[in-house]
């Protein structure tokens, strides 16, 4: 029993790394642009489906597919912020109105992307497993891609964290997140920074989708549940906190494995919700959130 729990926890951590990556982009987008981007899951879906197409149709290695689809999704996210959300922000009388309108606009965009994808690629399951053979480690059987995807997710997470905390661009992004007005006065091109951050979030979602597609069969309808997962992870970790998303992602990964392995696979989302409820009652700012 103890060994089974240990193996579930390790698999959960490996799984949680990817969840963390999926949520990180969303956290960045809310933290900087103040948009609850509920289209996030659709970007994950685009990343996953495009990876499948590149892998099966053009024989591209799924782990290299982000090199091609990353810039594409970055551009899409960039455009979305530079046109739609920027206009909404300019016309909204107050930040609260902007948040509400942006949420509803994102709700519309969600359906546009999902059904565009459904018209183009249909609704079937797309299995494109990669590195799906087993390895034995500490007496437990793992699938190879669990290690690979975790390593990539962790590396990307650290890279984004370093980028935000060390580089000049990262400093500009943090300044804009904290106080766009003052950042603008200091010579930061805030509109550019907002669009860049949104694009970066979309790119991270796309890479996350590519990693997901190596493990499970993807489909054009997968966006919604992934958005819900990413939203829960982000709130658990603290809205706008990048390390928080990663920690919460790993926590959710462990919980999902334990619930599915020891109790009832259908009940993972209700368990997340129970965690979310307790968190909102006790510490609404999230595990690593400030304020």
């Amino acid at each position: 029993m103890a060994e089974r729990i240990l193996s579930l926890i390790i698999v959960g951590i490996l799984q949680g790394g990817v969840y963390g990556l999926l949520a990180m982009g969303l956290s960045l987008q809310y933290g900087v642009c103040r948009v609850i981007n509920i289209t996030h899951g659709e970007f994950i879906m685009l990343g996953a489906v495009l990876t499948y197409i590149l892998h099966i149709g053009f024989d591209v290695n799924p782990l290299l597919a982000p090199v091609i689809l990353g810039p594409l999704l970055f551009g899409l996210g960039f455009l979305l912020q530079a046109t739609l959300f920027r206009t909404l922000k300019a016309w909204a009388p107050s930040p609260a109105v902007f948040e509400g309108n942006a949420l509803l606009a994102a709700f519309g965009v969600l359906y546009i992307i999902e059904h565009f994808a459904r018209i183009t690629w249909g609704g079937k399951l797309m299995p494109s497993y990669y590195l799906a053979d087993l390895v034995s480690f500490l007496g437990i059987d793992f699938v190879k891609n669990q290690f690979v995807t975790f390593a990539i997710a962790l590396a990307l997470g650290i890279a984004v964290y370093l980028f935000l905390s060390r580089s000049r661009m990262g400093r500009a992004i943090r300044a804009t997140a904290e106080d766009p007005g003052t950042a603008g006065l200091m010579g930061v091109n805030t509109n550019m920074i907002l669009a860049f951050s949104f694009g970066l979030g979309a790119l991270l979602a796309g890479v996350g989708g590519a990693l997901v597609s190596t493990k499970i069969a993807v489909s054009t309808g997968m966006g919604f549940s992934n958005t819900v997962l990413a939203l829960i992870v982000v709130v658990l970790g603290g809205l706008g906190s990048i390390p928080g998303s990663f920690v919460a992602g790993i926590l959710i990964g462990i919980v999902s494995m334990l619930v599915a392995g020891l109790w009832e696979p259908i009940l993972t989302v209700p368990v997340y919700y129970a965690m979310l409820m307790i968190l909102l009652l006790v510490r609404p700012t999230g595990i690593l959130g400030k304020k």
Partner: protein
Amino acid sequence: MDIPRFISTHRKLLLVGFLVLILIFITTFPLYARASHIRLLTTILIYVVLAVSWALFSGTTGYMSLAPAAFFGLGIYTMALLQKELPFFLIIPIGGLVAFAFALLIGLVTLRLRGIYFAIFTFGLVIFMTEIIQYLETRLWGQHGQHITPIDNEPLLYTMLVLVVVTVLATYLIRRSRYGLALLSIGGNEEAAEHMGINTTRTKVFIFAISSFFMGATGVIAAPSLIYVNANIAFSTYYSFMPIFMAIFGGMGQIYGPIIGAVIFGYLEKTLRAQLFSYFMLGFGIIMVAVILFLPNGIVGLVPTLQDKIWGPVPALRKEKTWKATAAGILNILGGIVQVIGSIILFMGSGFLAQFARLEFISGFIGWLAGLYIAVAIVLIILGLTAILGGICALRRSSWRLGLAGSICALFSPAFILGIPAIILIILGKDEFEYVVEGGQTEQHANT
């Protein structure tokens, strides 16, 4: 006769008369309509309740609930589980109360916090409910889905009508009451509202639960026409999207905004959804984004602007009226009438095709054709109405821009032959829309 003045002086009387006419129309509808049309009307009424009750809470406070489907689905499942034990009319309030209690629970946890947490929490509620129901069904009850005994169309229509009247009346009274003002002030500035002595959390939770009550009760009435439900059918995100979309399209500032949105898109949903589901949702997504961007108050918000443009005062100091703009206006109106008639013919044609397709069991191509007819008919009716309004503007010389827009709209139609001279004439007659300032200069009449 001065129509605007007549309307404004007898406003209440006209409104009551209009409502009575609608009620008579709906109550007598089963006497002369086919069964499929009765079902269509019931569906529209279902969407009316969902959209109005969504706008009651989210439209006024700005707290965006993304989960009408969760409460609607609760109603459906209440009906599915209780239909054997209780009479239909008792289940309706019970379904509402179940949704009420659930909303109370959610509200107490999330509505103390900022709106963003509420929106995030409600977004995934559909999946939460689906998984809980699936767990109960597979593990405890040992069955997949529930069968619901169908009920005749007419009783369903009349129960739905009663619920619509109750919902609209309750919404109207709440908006007029202290609670309504409290909601509006929360939407305007929550901190200020709190300092004014409003118990904001209690108000929000209470109204959220009330609006959920109506959604749950609607779910009970919608359930019998589904015949079979499972968790995925009852808790579909589709029923979250549609009411929100309808309320935004209609405009949430007035109580009749969501009703207008629900009537228009309830009709389109029922006629187009089966054949062209993905295209239909794609189009709705695009319309939703466009409305949020360009019509923040929905189409109801357009009314005062248009009213002012069309019936608004025209300055006395005008150049003399000549035949040019008048002729252009008449051409506009004629073109608009042709377009409206054309669109009505297309609507009827699509209904005929749909019937034909159902009789022959060939929904594929014929269905597509019917969908195409309706799409063209919608475009035509919008163009036609714009042309007629533009024509009135041209006749009264109240807005040159709208007049020109009307002429351009008259161009895209079977009556394009009327549009070409209309555009030429209205451009030639532009100076008739300008008024003379004392020095003899002319200036474009700035009418906003």
